[in-house]
């Protein structure tokens, strides 16, 4: 074992809890990949991963929410089965769904920044429904814009082809996720914040 002679640099109480929450949320987004709902019009079953991205931004804020999704990507790249259909590996980060995956940290940070109007968390009871819906709409736009850009770059499709294959069929399901997230935020169902 390597021996270290420097003194121990303890992680503070708050940082340790935030790190634990970021890691648990990353694992939750991964676990959401296994819960699929059949959805009318959608060619593939819909999973809750994007909902997890929104909730990470809303409940952890822009900094730790974004950091949480960075952990999700790192863990997936190193072999945790957290990507679509329980897959893993660096390949996914440069494959067909690369654009969607890389957009998650950005979308979570954006949703958090809009909902909390800055980096300090505010009480979610004081946040209006239009702000929450606006934040998630912006997040959805980021996810699909980068997702389509990813398809264009990775699979040599044109933007229109990528839009048809990678966005049109999934957008109705995204609306259902935004509605579900608003329901969660407004219902006080989440105990710890």
């Amino acid at each position, binding site marked *: 074992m*390597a021996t270290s002679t420097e003194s121990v640099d303890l992680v503070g109480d708050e940082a340790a809890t935030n790190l634990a929450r970021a890691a648990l949320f990353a694992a*939750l987004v991964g676990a959401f990949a296994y*819960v699929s709902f059949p959805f009318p019009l959608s060619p593939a079953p819909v999973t809750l991963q994007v909902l997890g991205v929104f909730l990470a931004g809303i409940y952890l804020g822009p900094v730790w929410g974004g950091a949480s999704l960075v952990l999700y990507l790192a863990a997936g790249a190193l072999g*945790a089965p*957290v990507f679509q259909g329980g897959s*893993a590996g660096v390949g996914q980060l440069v494959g067909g769904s690369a654009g969607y995956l890389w957009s998650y940290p950005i979308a979570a940070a954006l949703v958090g920044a809009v909902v909390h109007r800055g980096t300090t968390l505010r009480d979610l009871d004081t946040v209006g429904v239009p702000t929450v819906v606006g934040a998630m709409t912006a997040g959805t736009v980021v996810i699909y814009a980068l997702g389509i850009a990813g398809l264009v770059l990775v699979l040599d499709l044109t933007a229109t082809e990528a839009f048809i294959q990678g966005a049109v069929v999934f957008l109705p399901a995204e609306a259902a996720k935004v509605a579900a997230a608003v329901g969660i935020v407004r219902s006080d169902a989440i105990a710890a914040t």
Partner: protein
Amino acid sequence: MTLSYVPGDSLAHRLDPRSKLLVQAGFAAAAYAYTTPRGLAVLSLLAVACLSLAGGGPRDLWTYRAAFPVLAIAPLVAGATLGAPWFRVDRAVTTGLASYRVLLILVVAAGYVRSTPVRDSRAAIQRTVPGKAGQFLGTGVALVFRFLPLLKRDLLTAREAVRARGGGALPVRERMRFVAVAGVNRAFGRADRLGTALNARCFAWNPTLPRLALGPADYPALAVGAGLLAAAVATVV
């Protein structure tokens, strides 16, 4: 069946995780730089070699089944046109090659996942990324591996509970809400207990890492990785 670490004594199992990561990066770069039938033929041999050196086989690729439809449909979407000639073969071939290169990168990545325990991956991150960022990534990744199965079970339990109470008749939106609320509450509960436990055990930014050293077998692997990267860079310059 999901792809995960399988204990073993293959060549890939004995390599340092850092050299395996370099090979993957080099392979991905080369696959993007040489997306030609000849280039991909050579890379196919290399990809199969990487996976079999890790003791893996075609069964390991089943885990990527969710990614296959997109890769399979993309060439058809790219080839289809509105109006004559209705289907352009050249466009379909270009996208087909692009799809195939993604498949090859997935094969190589499967070899890494099969042959590398979490502990080694974590040590590789913390030794490569400096400072607190590296510690955050390393610890966080280890925690994700640890808690993923627990949260998966939490979600499945919540889903069973919703179904048992006749929740199947509710709109999808409501079912999503119930499952997500249960998941987030369980995640927060576990995170707060974990945070307290980490503090109680003197969780530090500078823990002692497992030993990681390059062995004789690593030098050829590093050479392959660096060679692939150099070949990819050569096409750009």
